[in-house]
């Protein structure tokens, strides 16, 4: 999704900002971690786009004979995007972050840079994206890194079999950002056994070290809004009212970068309110994930068990419920019970531990193919976790002084390092 979710959130803030670079030789200008996360990279600091790019949309039939409920009638298979070169070249698979689709803004930026450098690129939706949950997840329950990696791997094999007659590939590489970065590690591990691709290099960009810990930190952003997480509706209405007043009194016509820059400069929202926007954006994504999964499994979690929804049924009550459920609710009431049933004796602690890099650290530490890029002020990681990444990947760890969570991804130096990793 992301498209609309972001439109709603970015409708509130976003914009190219011009700031003073600190004296550390790193030119990304936005110092605050939440600001950077929301605003991203100013257009003039992004690398130029490729002159032309050949792109093809793939719609994969990953699960043969899958019966889709009427409400997902528009879902006709997993949508992936291939950017292809006319000559023999390495192919990079990219896995996106929580709730993102195969054409999310960030992954398209990565795709363009790799394309310029001469790679084929294939992007896939996140296992937390409704399209993936419906059309590519074997159990339709997202959240377990090992099982999600198996689903991703199957999608990659399926996509590859579909395009291998059309493009010439010399080598395979793998990359991912945010949750997709963490998943990339598990996919790479699976590849060591299955050997369909023999990835030469794997890059993780702003990954979570442990899924549960990182999501808990994102959820924590909502603890600081007025009234706490149970009042996100009131919080959103309040933010929207402020934004509307600002527009009414300013000399603006269009809701464009200029206007949004003014919103940022005016410090219309407090630090905690900015954090709340990130928390809310996450909840909007996870709402789609929870709903799609519950419908597909007939789980009786938010939709009454055995209810058959059609394309014309109102869904606003489900939306309200899903947005108010935290990841911790989902974890304790849906995800963990599901896997507890499947794996007898699985304790809550053991399950949490399995959702992180630590569970496969022996492999990660021994393999030279991994690299990681993250930021010192990425709020999804604790300082101890950043140190852990340094310990795990040593010299192949790059930690930028600022950028929040993925805010500096499209900054030209970051993009150069990103592509440079695969080139080396």
């Amino acid at each position, binding site marked *: 999704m992301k498209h*609309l979710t972001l439109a*709603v959130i970015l*409708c509130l803030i976003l914009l190219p900002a011009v700031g003073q670079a600190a004296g550390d030789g790193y030119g990304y200008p936005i110092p605050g971690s939440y600001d950077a996360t929301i605003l991203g990279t100013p257009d003039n600091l992004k690398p130029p786009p490729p002159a032309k790019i050949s792109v093809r949309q793939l719609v994969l039939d990953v699960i043969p004979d899958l019966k889709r409920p009427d409400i997902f009638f528009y879902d006709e298979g997993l949508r992936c995007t291939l950017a292809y070169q006319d000559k023999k070249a390495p192919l990079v698979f990219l896995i996106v972050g929580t709730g993102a689709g195969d054409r999310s803004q960030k992954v398209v930026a990565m795709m363009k840079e790799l394309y310029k450098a001469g790679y084929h690129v294939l992007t896939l939706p996140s296992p937390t994206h409704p399209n993936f949950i419906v059309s590519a997840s074997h159990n339709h329950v997202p959240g377990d890194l090992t099982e999600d990696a198996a689903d991703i791997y199957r999608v990659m094999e399926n996509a590859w079999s579909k395009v291998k007659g059309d493009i010439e590939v010399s080598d395979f590489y793998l990359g991912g950002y945010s949750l997709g970065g963490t998943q990339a590690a598990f996919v790479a591990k699976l590849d060591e056994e299955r050997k369909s691709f023999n990835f030469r290099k794997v890059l993780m960009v702003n990954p979570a070290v442990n899924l549960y810990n990182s999501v808990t930190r994102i959820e924590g952003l909502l603890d600081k809004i007025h009234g706490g997480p149970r009042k996100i509706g009131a919080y959103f209405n309040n933010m929207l009212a402020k934004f*509307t007043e600002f527009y009414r009194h300013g000399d603006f016509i269009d809701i464009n970068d200029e206007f949004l820059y003014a919103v940022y400069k005016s410090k219309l929202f407090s630090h905690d309110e900015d954090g709340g926007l990130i928390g809310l954006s996450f909840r909007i994504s996870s*709402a789609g994930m929870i*709903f799609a999964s519950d419908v597909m499994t007939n789980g009786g979690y938010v939709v009454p068990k055995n209810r058959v929804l059609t394309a014309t049924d109102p869904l606003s009550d489900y939306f309200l419920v899903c947005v108010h*459920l935290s990841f911790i609710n989902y974890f304790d009431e849906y995800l963990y019970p599901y896997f507890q049933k499947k794996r007898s004796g699985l304790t809550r602690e053991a399950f949490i531990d399995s959702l992180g890099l630590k569970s496969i650290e022996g492999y990660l530490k021994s393999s030279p193919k991994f690299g990681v890029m993250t930021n010192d002020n990425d709020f999804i990681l604790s300082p101890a976790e950043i140190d852990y990444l340094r310990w795990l990947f040593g010299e192949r760890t790059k930690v930028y002084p600022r950028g929040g969570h993925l805010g500096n991804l499209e900054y030209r130096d970051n993009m150069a390092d990103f592509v440079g990793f695969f080139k080396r």
Partner: protein
Amino acid sequence: MPVTIFRIYPVLLALYLALSLTGCATTIANRPPEEPAMHSVSEFSDDERVVDIADPWEGFNRGVYKFNYHFDRYFFLPVVSGYEFITPTFIQKGVSNFFANIGEIRTLYNSAFQLKGKKFLTTFGRFLTNSTIGIGGLFDPATPFGLKKQSEDFGRTLGYWGVDSGPYLVLPVLGPNSLRSTGGFAVDAGIRFTTIAATDPFENVDHGTGIMAGISTLEAIDMRHKEKFRYYESGYPFEYYMVRFLYHKKGELLLMK
């Protein structure tokens, strides 16, 4: 607005709705009884509802939303792609400019109706510049001259004079609207066709009606060509609400200026 489309779509819509309704009736048998979900909306009644937008016809709206998806997919978008494929980009641009220039007339009289002098003059300047130097509207030299494109319609004129936006309404082919914008659209279309009938630009030409129909069709194609939105493309189960919210909010903000 597109005459030809107005002629076909009631038929298509009626057919479509009839087919989808009969489809529903067959699946109800043999369904196990429902059990309540673990979480329901009543738990969260202490929070405010988010931007409550009047949508009493949601079921109908969703039906039309789905219809628009199919209409796009099997008819409109293939036609638009064909147009994009056979027409050189600079001609596509010229076509867009041409129809945008005709659209200035709507902005012009609606600015007048709303007593917005500056907007009226800017638009007048644009129309004059683009119709002459811009060769009948095929080019847009007004924008680089500093005359920024404005936009007004009769729905907003109604809003300006205090008419409430009314319920949300998804129109066949045209998509998200409110009751007020639908009424405004009808008035603007009426004004336009009255003007065309009065001036009768193809009076002395053979097949004048055919030419008008062709122009309207091209305008409809150009409109879809410029619109990037694709129904259900986000894959997000609550997309309908996101679109409704953005449509409503945008209308509210535009009314302030």
